[in-house]
Structures are given as C-alpha cells and as structure tokens.
C-alpha cells in the first residue's frame, strides 16, 4: 500500500497550490498515473477516501487519468498501448517489449473555490 503515502504527498501538494491560489476548498483533484509508474490507481482511490478528511479536499472528487505505456511484441511486432503492465502479446502471446512513456506520477490540476 505505498499508494497511501503517495496520496498523502499529492494532497499536501494540492493544498499548497490551492492556498497559493487563494482558494479555501478543493472540489476536484486530477492526477496522471502511468502504467509504468508502479502505482495502482485503485489503491490511490482507496487512499484518497481515507486521507481527504481534515483537508481542503474533504468533499473533493478524484480523477485519475491513466497514461498507457507502449509495448512492442518481440514475435509479431504488433504495437500495443496498455494501461497495465503485461508481457504477453494480445495478438500472438509472444513476449512484449516495454517502450518509453507511462512513467507519469503527476498532480495535473485542481478545481478550487
């Protein structure tokens, strides 16, 4: 459950930016999470529900944009953009090779008031 601490960090960052913008509450937090980041979005959502109380985001919703990682099959050459890491080609079951991208772990934007 290392997502709990990542969410704690994200909430602190969100509060800092909200306060800098002169806001008193956060209604929405948007994150970008890459498939290659090693972080599980469902676990972030669980952590958010637990941790948002006592913060400016107490009544906020969480939006996670999942950023895919590109894979190329070492057998048939097919390109796949996958939101979860796997190494079996969807086309031929050959071994997939991970490409670039999908390492994102970013606080994207907030809705505040």
């Amino acid at each position: 459950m290392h997502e709990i601490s990542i969410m704690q960090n994200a909430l602190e960052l969100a509060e800092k930016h909200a306060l800098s913008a002169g806001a008193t509450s956060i209604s929405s937090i948007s994150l970008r999470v890459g498939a290659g980041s090693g972080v599980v979005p469902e676990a972030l959502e669980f952590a958010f529900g637990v941790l948002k109380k006592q913060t400016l985001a107490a009544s906020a919703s969480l939006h996670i944009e999942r950023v895919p990682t590109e894979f190329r099959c070492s057998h048939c050459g097919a390109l796949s953009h996958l939101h979860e890491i796997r190494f079996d080609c969807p086309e031929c079951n050959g071994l997939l090779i991970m490409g670039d991208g999908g390492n994102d772990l970013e606080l994207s934007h907030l809705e505040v008031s």
Partner: protein
Amino acid sequence: MCDNCGCGDVDSFTIIPMLKSAGIDTAAGHSHPSHADGATAAHHDYPHQYTYNHLREPQREHVHAEDLSPEPRHEHVHDHDHPHTHSHDHSHRTVRVHTPILEENDRRARHNRRFLKARGIFAINIVSSPGSGKTSLIARTLEKAAGVLPAAVIVGDLETANDAIRLRDKGAPVVQITTGTVCHLDAAMVSRALKHLDLEDRRLLIIENVGNLVCPASYDLGEAMRVVLISVTEGEDKPLKYPPIFRGAGIVLITKIDMCAASGLDMQELRRNIRAVAPAAEIIEVSARTGEGMDEWIELLRAASCRPSNASPNSGPSFQKSGQNDSDHSSHSHAVS
C-alpha cells in the same frame, strides 16, 4: 513518513563518515599537520567531517528558473457579463499544477546532479534485492578501478555501518547512511551525505541503495545512471515482476555468475526478460568472487563516465540509457579540474 510506501520517517536518517581502519596503508588517505605539537597525526578510527572547498553546497536551497513548473498555474475568473437565472459560486476556478507528486525529491536530485557535474563526477545508483551482491561488487570495483576511476561511496542500509566498514579499506572515501525504517535512499539523504565525502580527485560516485526492488525506483538521487543487480539465484522472471526498477537501468549486472550452474538458471530466458523491460540496458555477467566480467564492467563504467552524464531525465528517475550521446566525449572531462 516515506513519500512512497509509508515505511518510516525520512528525516530520521543518520550519516556516518568512514575512516580507514588503523594499521592500513595511508597513502590514499589524509593527514592532520596542524596539531598543536606540529606532528602529523596518525589515522584514527572515529568518524569526523572532512573539510574541503565546496564548489557548490549540494543541499543549499535556491530556486533556478528551470526548477519552476513548465506550466505555471493560472486562474480562470468570470469577468464577463451575462444574465443569471440561478446563483452559483463565481470564485470556482481551475488551478493547473502539472507537477510530479514527488517534486520535492526531484528538485533536490537536480541540485545533486548539478553539484556532481560541476565536479566532473559520474554518479551511479546501485539497486537490487537484499543479498544480490551489491557490497561485494563495489568492493571489487574499488580494487580494480582505482587507477582509472577513483571513486567515493555512499552506502545506504536500514541499520548498521557494516557495509561501509567492509568498504573503508579499499582506498575510497565512504559514508554510511542508516535510514532507520526507510526502505530507500532519497535525494535529500544523498545531498547530506555528499557534505561528508572528500570528493577531491574523485571521478566516480557509487551510491549503494537500500536493498529493495520497489521503492527506490521512484526516487531520483541525482545520479547519472542506475545500475541494477540480479543474482543468478533470483529467478529468470524477476525483471517482469519488478519492471519499474529494471526499466530505468543503464546497466544490468547478473551477479554471482560463478554459481550459475548450481542455480539452474536459464540465462537466455533471464536475458530475454531483462531486454523486455530495459531494451537499451547493457547486460554484463559478473562474479565479484572470481573476477569474471569485472574488466568489462569497469570499462563500461569508464566509457559511460566520459559521456555527458547528467542530462536531466525526461520522465521518471534515471532514464538516461547507456548508449546515448556516444558522440560527445568532451564535456565531462572539461568539468574535471
């Protein structure tokens, strides 16, 4: 608390500078000519802080333009006029952040990278499971590379200074970081440790991370290259089980190769799986015990250290791949003074 896995308080680590043990050749060490009696003091066995001239304080807080978010936040305000048929909160607006969640660590890592670049030092971050042979590899590397790549070492463990003690007589300055309960090194710990290292005439900084294949993947330390170790007893599919850490590797070392036959490892399958996760990484089979592969490893380090070593990674920590920037062999040596 650890930013990543909640494993402990990242501010409660301890830094232990290592001096060479008594009775060892002091040629590579230092002396204290300024004692009151004018005598040069013998080497002693307790930690103290080295003094040296800083080109730049590694941990000093200051803001560079490049540290600022590329997309500064801005506000949307309702300054237009239109008829209202209902009431709502006019102050509602979007704040664009576009900032890595681990931005504070990334910022400190950039500072470390600049500090090391200014001194012409090539830094590697060695990560692996516990027991893959990091310390043995480093000890052998210090012995064999002393002539071509004089090194300094930062060692990270949860507890004990045992690893630093194992390394301190190899002719290189060593600092131990004990992290307490924290399962990885971060950029702030490395920054603090750098203050305690005598980096004079050093060209290589070896950072031995805490043995862990998960959390260290998220923390850029300011290194030029990540080196991942996997020993022959760990199984062919480990790279597929822990892709984030292997993915950022410039070099993957398959260690304890002298035990390969006994382990029953399918080397071709392991290499295939490393390639699937880290297609651009160099793969070397080594044995710190027999010395097999060590020459190739050190030559690769030497060649990499001559390339521009501190380009900031575009995404994620330490994604500079071995084999990049082969054409420019000059800029790193220019930084050496």
